[in-house]
């Protein structure tokens, strides 16, 4: 019991007995079944699972984009199940950096505008946000592309823009959903190298993937099958996590 409490205290993400189901007409689809998971600060975790296993649902719940039916979720000291929509908006803006498979950049904005968007939402001016994000932009090699529109960039470049957008707000965790899924092999490798670097710099990363080769880049891999989480072939229980 002490171990559990210590792990929950140390964890930046702590899920306990999280359940989520969807109504599909008359049927109820139980997508997440008693999921318990703890992710420590600075950890690089891969959630590996096939399509339909519930990994994206898990990511949405971790990312405060969806609400669980039952269970408890603590993110960086905030009890998410008790948070209201306004608080969740703030948490998404300040504690989470999303990286999506399809990049999800806004086509009408240029690279700079896409990257600084989370900072603008914090109340910064464009000038302030630009100054605050210049290091990240330079690190990701996008300094020459700031005025370009997303459709003028390659897939790899677009994903780097998405990563820059996720990083500029210095979030507590980076949540990546199949970050290499839409990229060619070379670009995928570049992105994974970047993730390694970011983790080395102390960023906490939770990556969802169906690709074992990609998952191997993470320091820790958990599997999700049929809505249940397994680590080393064993269902993850709170006392077994970590």
């Amino acid at each position, binding site marked *: 019991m002490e171990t559990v409490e210590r792990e929950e205290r140390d964890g930046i993400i702590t899920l306990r007995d999280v359940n989520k189901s969807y109504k599909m007409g008359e049927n109820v689809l139980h997508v997440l079944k008693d999921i318990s998971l703890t992710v420590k600060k600075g950890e690089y975790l891969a959630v590996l699972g096939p399509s339909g296993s519930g990994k994206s649902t898990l990511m949405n719940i971790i990312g405060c*984009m969806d609400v669980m039916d039952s269970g408890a979720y603590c993110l960086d000291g905030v009890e998410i199940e008790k948070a209201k929509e306004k608080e969740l*908006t703030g948490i*998404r*803006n*300040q504690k989470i950096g999303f990286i999506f498979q399809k990049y*999800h950049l*806004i086509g009408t904005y240029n690279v700079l505008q896409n990257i600084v*968007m989370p900072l603008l*939402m914090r109340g910064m001016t464009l000038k302030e946000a630009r100054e605050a994000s210049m290091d990240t932009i330079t690190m990701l090699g996008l300094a020459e592309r700031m005025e370009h529109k997303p459709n003028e960039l390659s897939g790899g470049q677009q994903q780097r823009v998405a990563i820059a957008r996720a990083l500029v707000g210095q979030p507590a965790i980076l949540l990546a959903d199949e970050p290499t899924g839409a990229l060619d092999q070379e670009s995928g490798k570049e992105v994974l190298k970047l993730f390694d670097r970011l983790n080395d710099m102390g960023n906490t990363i939770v990556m969802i993937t169906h690709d074992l080769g990609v998952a191997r880049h993470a320091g820790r891999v958990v599997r999700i099958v049929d809505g249940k989480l397994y680590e080393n072939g064993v269902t993850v229980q709170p006392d077994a996590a970590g």
Partner: protein
Amino acid sequence: MKPNELLRLVWINITQNKFKTVLTSIGIIVGAATIVMVIAIGKGGQADVAEQFKNLNAGAIDISYDGGDRERGGQSAEASPGGGNFSGGEGGFSGGRGRSPDEAGGGVLNGDSFPGGRMDFFGGGSDMEERINQENITLDEDDVDDIETFVSGISAATISYSTRSSVEGGELDEAQTYTIAGVREEYAQMSNLSLAVGEFIAESEDENKDKVCVLGASVAEEIFGSAIDAYGSVIYIDSRSYVVNGVLSSMGTVASGISPDDSIFIPYATGVKYLVGSSVSPTITVIAEDVDNVEQVSKDVAKVLAQTYPNAEFTYEDAGSKMEAASASNEILTMLLIAMAAIVFVVGGIGIMNVLFVSVKERTNEIGILKAIGCSRKNILFEFLLEAAAISLIGGILGVAASLCAAPVVEYLGVRVELSAAAFLIALLFAVITGTIFGFYPAYKASRLVPVEALGAE
């Protein structure tokens, strides 16, 4: 998010879809143009009314007689007793009008008081009611004198008539028909006429029945090319020569009665002698000293005329009533146009709402992205609302521009328009309000999208 940054994003979204923005705002463009034109036409109408009445004294009362049938029963106007007023030149009814103020005040209404032949028609008793306005009556200078003598609270009174007659002379290749107004000296002052050159009709010219005339500004220009050329020249009215003694300054249009610019003024008695004869149907104009006293003056004038013409009912028209009637009809037109503009705006607003709904649908993924990176409901609501307002504002500006193009066309079609900055501002205000109201629901729907569902939308 800071308002200026929100506006920047709105501006980016609008400028990225210029064609769509213009198409979306078509309803608002039409609405704004309509409202500008409505106000412009309304103001034009008001200006027209004001201009038409500018020469009209607010205390003026026109008295005319519409009864009788000058041709009925073979009794032509010339043969009627009333008509005899003019046939004898300056004599007329003087013999029959030996009334004193006491008589007038004493209600002497029997036929014996009027031996001048007018009472030949009067049967007396109950038959009189049936005979109201059945006789031929011609108002004349003596009636004016009676009114001036017995009615208090009037500053001036005159008599005039107008007829149409052929005119030759000057640069005219052939005879043209013009309005000829028979007036007396005081007419110019009472009608606020001013002369560009020369003199108006003098009392002596009226008494002597001199063949002189004063031309309206337009008439002088048409016949002689200019006022200066006209002055001192000769024109031929009904083949009789008249010397042009003066030319009026341009007076513009008038609501009713004689239009000075398009008329030729001659001495009253001259016209009676040479042009209209006994068929004249003159109007007496009385000016009440106090505008608020117009009604009482009208009643007093009626009493005086009733003594002379007990079986006649005269038509009284005061300038204030004419102005009110003209203003009222103008207001009705304005209200109709405003109703039309309101309908156009509602249709335009619904158009904006539809397009914004489509836009929200199209941009659901973008809304999902914004929500994922922490954009609040309030910011999304404001962004879409600002977009709706901005599209409407652009529509309003284009509408105002369209109205500037439409105004000359409408004026060409004969409708006076008075464009004003206030109209532009009102149109822009209505455009923005309409867009914001109709844009609210789509914006609200956008703000309430569930992030995960919005992000998953293709």
